[in-house]
């Protein structure tokens, strides 16, 4: 039976009337009308539907909307403030952190969840964390560059300085995770 509830998304309260079997993903997209959160694999693997609920990163495709009543839900639509993009959004634009874009909201929300808890992660910590978000355009290095640009406060250096960019790519290649990934 449908029930009325309030979902608090990006600080705004939304009255919805939904079945208890409604997924958070469906409620966000179809009831609240925020379609930035994407559906990819539908089984929690790909990360396209990543959102933050009460400070924790979750797959909206495996979360019941009813379980989010009274909680603080953050989606990609809530990042920009007064028309100004969030540093992560600016970094993804500046560093080419996306190609087709369908995984991007999830990538950025995942990165935000990491930086909210750990503003200074190492490259390897970022790689491990972001391994939960797939990109079928294989833009992983640019995604990593984008997130590290925020960590290092270099968002607006962007791609304009090719020497800076090349140095960054070299340092990412040399990290331990990359070595262990390729040693097998």
């Amino acid at each position: 039976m449908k029930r009325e509830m309030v979902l608090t998304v990006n600080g705004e309260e939304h009255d919805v009337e939904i079945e208890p079997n409604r997924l958070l993903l469906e409620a966000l997209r179809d009831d609240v009308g925020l379609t930035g959160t994407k559906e990819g694999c539908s089984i929690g693997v790909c990360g396209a539907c990543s959102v933050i609920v009460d400070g924790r990163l979750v797959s909206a495709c495996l979360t019941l909307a009813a379980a989010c009543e009274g909680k603080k839900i953050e989606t990609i639509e809530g990042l920009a403030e007064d028309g100004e993009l969030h540093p992560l959004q600016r970094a993804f634009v500046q560093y080419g952190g996306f190609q087709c874009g369908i995984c991007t909201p999830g990538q950025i929300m995942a990165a935000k969840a990491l930086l909210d808890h750990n503003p200074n992660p190492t490259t390897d910590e970022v790689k491990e964390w972001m391994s939960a978000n797939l990109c079928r355009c294989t833009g992983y290095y640019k995604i990593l560059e984008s997130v590290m640009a925020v960590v290092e406060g270099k968002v607006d250096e962007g791609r304009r300085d090719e020497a800076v960019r090349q140095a960054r790519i070299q340092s990412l290649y040399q990290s331990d995770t990359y070595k262990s990934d390729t040693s097998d």
Partner: protein
Amino acid sequence: MRAKFEYYAPTSLDEACALLREHEGDAKLLAGGTALVMWLRMGLLSPGYVIDLENVPGLDGITYDPAGGLRIGAGVKHRDLELCPEVREHYPLLRETFYKVAQPRIRLMATVGGNLSHGDPMTDPGASFMALDAEVTLRSSRGERTLSVEEFFVDYYETALEPDEILTAIHVPPPAGRVWSHIKFTPRSEEDFATVGVAVTLAGENSRCDDVRIALNSVGPTIFRARAAEDALRGRDLSPARIEEAGAAAADASDPIEDVRGSSDYKRELTAVFVRRALEQAAARLG
């Protein structure tokens, strides 16, 4: 087609037990949701009632003391267990195992009790808990009982949980100086389910084995202990020939299904290889 259900979010364990008893056989418990919600979506389950345990107090928390061991609330998330300093220090096998489960976001959602209660033979934690001789506490309106993790796994996706019971905690005895090893073989991608999973704990000195526990996942209808393999080693010298023999005994005890990860024969062969390697790794850690 996804079934419709009524949703409850009880705020005490007694209330949760009462709801489960009232709707016995037609209710499913929801914890992290990574297994249950997926199965609901796929239409593999169609309960009339879903009882969310998130607001039930007492299911969280990890506590350790040297005499009593480790107590893990059933609602503890995989990620929190993985990052717990006491777990890292005293139960490196658990740290290693939980680090290898799926990927960080799933580990943030999935609970330790939910994983065990799902009874999925492909998942990793059960084997390591078995190798550590862990127990689970089950609670219902009728009372509380304790079972070893080994007794808890009954068959393919079937556990010893009665329809009115809730797994509330996992207890792991003190580590008692045992060495360990863990192998999760994932040839497709790192976050995949194991093709073969092996957890070993070993007590002994030099190369003598006083006691050993070998538990396997992904190669049978349940996660199980390879007892014949253990018997081949207990009280003996860990010679290469004995270790080889133990690997073969574990392969004999396995009963893997054929799937996208390989044929039954292939997985049985792998079982012998990875049990041997896990034993070699554990033996190398003996003082």
